[in-house]
């Protein structure tokens, strides 16, 4: 039986985090001449958003190139784990310098 006057020593209820904090990748000095990959989870009008970003980035950086989301497949759902596991070698094979990933909505 618990009494409100009784003092209890309670332990922390959470589990310990396991992920080591890591730095993000070095950034690019410019997008001029660089190859940008579009990674999409096939949700929330990402196809339209990528088209708009591609158009806007090309206006600012005329030599920027893109690898379409169609070349990767959905980064959400049944194929996610395999696509992300393969991503380092896929990006290397495609000469990818930077990634735009959507959509978080």
């Amino acid at each position, binding site marked *: 039986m618990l009494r409100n006057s009784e003092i209890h020593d309670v332990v*922390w209820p959470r589990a310990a985090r396991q992920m080591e904090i890591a730095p993000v990748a070095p950034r690019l000095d410019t997008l001029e001449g660089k190859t940008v990959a579009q990674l999409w989870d096939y949700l929330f009008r990402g196809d339209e958003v990528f088209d*708009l970003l591609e158009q806007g980035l090309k206006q600012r950086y005329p030599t920027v190139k893109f690898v379409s989301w169609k070349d990767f497949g959905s980064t959400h759902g049944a194929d996610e*784990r395999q696509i992300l596991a393969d991503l380092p070698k896929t990006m290397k094979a495609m000469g990818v310098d930077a990634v735009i990933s959507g959509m978080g909505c």
Partner: protein
Amino acid sequence: MLRASAAAEKAGVPSSSLVCEGFIGQAGTTSVGLGLPNLPVALVPGHVGTQSDAELSENVLGVTLDDVVRNLTEMPGEVATVEDPEPREIVFSGTIDEINRLFIENEWSDGLPIIPPTAERVEAFLAFTDRDPDEVLAILLPDSRAATVWSVAVNGVMAGCRPEYMPVLIALVEAMGDPDYGVEHSGNTPGGETLITINGPIAAQLRFNDEQGVLRDGFQPNTSVGRFWRLALRNLAGFLLHKNDKCTFGNTWRVVMAENEPVLDEIGWPTTAEDLGISKGRNAVSIARYTGSNLIASATGDTGEKMLPFLADAVLKQNTWQLVFTIGTSPGTLRPLLVLSPILAKTLAKDGWSKADVKQYLYDHCRLPAWQFERYLGEWTDHPIRDLKDQVALRRAPKQFAESDDPDRMVPITFRPDDFMIAVSGDPLRTNAITFAHNGILGYTVAREIETPAGWEEKLKAAR
């Protein structure tokens, strides 16, 4: 989406994540769990789903574009992270009122009073397992926390479980960590809630309710183990409302459903656990996330032919947008659930129907026109995969979805008859059923055997 960005960053490639306005906070907390607290995001104002083409263009070119350029060309600032206590650390000494206030303030509680997790109470739970208290059962996203036997016991205490429930709690957290289940999706916006089903002799040994009112709070094992599940999602995985748990509405945890195994034995139908690969007679828990349920009242008829059309109609109507889990980015992962009261199951069995027969009936009769199925994928939910024939051609769907060009052709809602789940529970003598719409790959149906400790029955007797 952030997991894809994290994979790129860890491979040395800079990223920019596109995040709608309402999800910026979630992106921040999720990034910590991915080990990249300063993962840069580009703001997409508002929500794209309600914007005209012109508004979307204005927002993306006027706001998002600058963020993307900055994210890819400027190093993001450092983000301070909070140091956690050690898992066994005594974090507070106080009265039950003070402890409950502290736990609510620190988001360690669900808002209801908790039983104080003292070392003594935790040890009582550990007496009901032969596992090492420090054994890691699973690393759980989104926080990437290591759920140990110890931490399971702590949350079992808090939930109001009895110590002898410990084997069930361990199996549940192992199931939560099953990659097929996909715990990382537990904070998604539809806010589905997990239904736990328990099978085997342990259900009766622990006095789970398996009959009238099975899904209502009122029986300690059903209720407290259900509450444990959500506390585990909170404290062991890291799903917190207004942070990583982005359910639009959500609902309270579901109490555990025990199947009526004497009836299943009597009619010769396999249990839910057996359907999921667990041997007959073994103790097991099964989990799956469901986005909602609908009660089917007063099914009538002394034969399957009379009774099943009504049940199939209700199962079909419960599944609308969820069809994106049948065709789309997680093909073939929709597993609708129909729970029959014992009298309905017995009537069907008496008329010669096996469980497999009922599943086949649901597969054959829960059908809708192809054009309507495609409308759920495209026009109404804006998914890019919309054409059933294309999916069949790409071998991402079985041929039953494209048997002709007729848009009025009737197509099934699952890939296979066996994708339908059927359970037997509830009031033995009432002719009702209940059906649940499944959340597909975002909480796929998995089962885990429950491991009892040596001397289980003696320990259980001593605990009573």
